[in-house]
């Protein structure tokens, strides 16, 4: 009788095979074989995993998309609100800069008292050059008070109510301002026109008038204080046959773009009517 049964030899063989395979595996000799064997399995598992994820997303995506859309909408609203705030702040900054400039002008001339006013409109009739400001008799504004900005002369108060006033600009066709040439000290007259052009008149022929010459108010006539900048000479028209030479003037103030003005409240225009001879 054999000591070792066939079953013993089978089990031994099996153990040796398993041990050999393990040894080969640990030694790394089975890697190529394992790679070939497992690659299809890995592919199948990937495919199955993708399908599973797709199914899960199919059921959960509407909730996520709705959340994202809501978040997006909230962010867009916030951006719009911030943009609006930014525009408002920029407007306030511009307004503050204008007011600082006017304040600097007022501080540099402490002999006058000023009331700042915003320009709120223009005359609806295009033949006239008037503006409306948002200060009136309640703020100490009176008829005839000069109106200036930090750049120069704007005009004169023409009509006043309790809360608003109308200012006649120097470019109006019916305005004449007594002025003085800064360099020579010669007196002349500045007139407006229907088209808004400003002309210097009654300049003697012997006066040397050059482009760029500064024009100031002379104070003659008592309608405006002396020494306020009015504008600069642009072109000179001198003809030997004329009594006077004329010039076109560029006003120092941009009268088409004035957000705010200063009204000189301690200056009262002189009433020369009693001194004028009867007609």
């Amino acid at each position, binding site marked *: 009788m054999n000591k070792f049964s066939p079953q013993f030899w089978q089990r031994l063989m099996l153990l040796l095979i398993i041990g050999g395979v393990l040894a080969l595996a640990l030694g790394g000799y089975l890697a190529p074989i394992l790679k070939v064997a497992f690659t299809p399995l890995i592919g199948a598992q990937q495919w199955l995993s993708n399908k599973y994820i797709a199914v899960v997303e199919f059921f959960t995506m509407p909730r996520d998309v709705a959340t994202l859309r809501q978040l997006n909408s909230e962010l867009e609203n916030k951006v719009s609100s911030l943009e609006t705030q930014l525009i408002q702040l920029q407007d306030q900054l511009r307004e503050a800069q204008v007011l600082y400039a006017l304040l600097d002008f007022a501080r540099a001339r402490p002999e006058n008292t000023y009331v700042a006013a915003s320009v*709120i*409109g*223009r*005359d*609806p*009739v*295009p*033949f*006239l050059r*008037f503006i*409306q400001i948002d200060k009136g008799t309640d703020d100490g504004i009176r008829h005839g008070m000069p109106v200036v900005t930090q750049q120069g002369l704007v005009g004169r108060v*023409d*009509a006043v109510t309790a809360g608003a006033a*109308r200012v*006649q600009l120097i470019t109006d*066709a*019916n305005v004449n301002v007594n002025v003085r040439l800064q360099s020579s000290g010669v007196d002349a007259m500045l007139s407006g*026109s*229907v*088209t*808004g052009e400003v002309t210097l008149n009654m300049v003697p022929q012997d006066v040397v008038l050059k482009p760029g010459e500064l024009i100031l108010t002379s104070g003659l006539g008592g309608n405006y204080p002396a020494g306020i900048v009015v504008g600069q000479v642009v072109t000179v028209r001198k003809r030997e046959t004329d009594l006077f030479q004329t010039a076109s003037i560029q006003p120092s103030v941009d009268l*088409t773009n004035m957000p705010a003005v200063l009204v000189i409240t301690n200056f009262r225009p002189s009433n020369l009517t009693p001194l004028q001879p009867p007609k």
Partner: protein
Amino acid sequence: MLQSVIFSRLPLLSGTADLVLLVIVAWSLQKKVKNALVWTLVGGLMVSYVSAMPAYAPLIGYILVFGFTRLIQRRIWQVPILTMITATVLGTFVTHILNILFLFVTGDPIPFQESITYITLPSALLNLLLALPIFVLVTDLAKWVYPEEVEV
């Protein structure tokens, strides 16, 4: 207010659109509107109050515009848009010439040719550009204020 704040600050050469004139003309052309004269007076008084023009010149001008708008409407009633355009151009010239006359009479004369060239003609062009949109808006307003009656 719109005229004073916005349209008077948008010049072409030296001319500006006259929103009040356009609205008066458009409102006067609406068939169902019976109180156009009242609104003409209101508009004219408001402009006269705000403007430095003498002696209610804008009011008189707008009343004249209302008058001949109604006159033209009887002649060209089939084509209201053509009436609007005609009344706008004529109205611009009438109001501007009236303003020039008033300024001349009150002792503040302005050069006529320069005024027509630099103010009236550009104003007429601007008014023409705005005539149709204003007419459409006012027509819609009239339909809303005076809805059509439906027979049941």
